């Protein structure tokens, strides 16, 4: 598995915000995206996950290889922790949710409805979903929001184990995860030119 991003440009709300982003991510590697608020980290990640088309450039990896985790965890509040996780496992065609529960220390909460979880516990459940997707590239948008120090360690361990299995992770974050990772600052790629894309694009 190798992700090659070549000369990628992305737009939000019809305005180009990043251009000329190029990097390579190989199996076993973690790449951390940095940059001030609004620079386009989320938009870039969504483009790589296939949720929105790129303005220009090329992403080598098929979105089918990407497990995407956004700001929102996509949990159903009336389903229990186990039901939420089992659902995603079935969607991705995997069966075993026990390792995911264990990796994020959720075993004791398995039967609790997601609406009764704290913000940090919800986040842990959202991240545990990554483990049941079985996909090689994790694309994570601020994964450590509302996690406490020990949960961040759990998360870092999960990423490390994922990379050891030949996966890779692309993470937008502001904190130091204590991972062996490369850093990519997006500030130099800020788009300067006005929209040269489709005129219609601004209205969609």
């Amino acid at each position: 598995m190798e992700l090659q991003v070549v000369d990628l440009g992305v737009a939000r709300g019809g305005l180009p915000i990043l251009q000329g982003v190029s990097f390579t991510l190989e199996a076993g590697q973690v790449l951390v995206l940095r940059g001030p608020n609004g620079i386009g980290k989320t938009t870039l990640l969504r483009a790589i996950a296939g949720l929105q088309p790129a303005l220009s450039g090329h992403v080598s990896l098929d979105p089918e290889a990407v497990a995407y985790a956004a700001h929102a965890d996509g949990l159903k509040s009336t389903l229990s922790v186990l039901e939420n996780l089992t659902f995603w496992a079935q969607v991705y065609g995997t069966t075993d949710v026990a390792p995911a529960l264990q990796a994020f220390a959720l075993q004791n909460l398995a039967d609790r409805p997601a609406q009764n979880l704290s913000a940090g516990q919800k986040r842990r459940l959202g991240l545990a979903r990554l483990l049941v997707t079985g996909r090689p590239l994790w694309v994570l948008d601020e994964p450590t929001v509302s996690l406490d120090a020990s949960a961040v360690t759990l998360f870092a361990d999960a990423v490390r184990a994922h990379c050891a299995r030949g996966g890779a992770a692309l993470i937008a974050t502001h904190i130091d995860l204590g991972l062996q990772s490369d850093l990519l600052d997006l500030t130099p790629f800020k788009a300067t030119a006005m929209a040269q894309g489709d005129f219609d694009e601004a209205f969609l």
Partner: protein
Amino acid sequence: MIALLIRDLRLAIRTGGGFGLGLAFFLIIAVLVPFGVGPDSAVLGRIAPGILWVGALLSCLLSLDRIFALDFEDGSLDLLATAPIPLEGLVGVKAFSHWLTTGLPLTLAAPVLGLLLSLPEPAYLWLILSLLIGTPALSFIGAFGASLTVGLKRGGLLLSLLVLPLYVPTLIFGAETIRRGAEGLGTATPLTMLGAITLGTLAVLPFASAAAIRINLR
């Protein structure tokens, strides 16, 4: 996809509102109309097909905006869009589960409410049949409307305005089937048209809805 269907049904049951709301609304219409119109059973029997179909249509409309809006709000729609399920399949499953939680209960409850409206006896078979054939179209058209308005806050009004004109053919042929059945006339024509509309929406709208969702998620 079966997992998605099970999840949606489970959510509809646990959250409440999904199952009961449409049914309760249907009941309210069928109970209130005789009070408004008066007890003349000849008059009631004549308007009953129309009332029942309008009621079914409006109760369907009530729960439409929940089809995608809830998943959009908690972020699951993004995650489902990146999951291995094709979006067209997702729309199909969601529309089907909407039908299971509204259209099907409405169809089953309709004969009882037909009694309240003194629907003529030969019409009951056609009432059930026309609702059974027609209500899937309501769910699929509704899912299309919901996918167009998925990113909007309080998109309910716009959704109703978009969807209601599309519901008109189903309403006309559905009510016509019952009316003709009640008068002992042939029902083949309106029933065939009703079936054709349903099959058409089943075939085309999941693709249109998926395209709309893709644009709305950008």
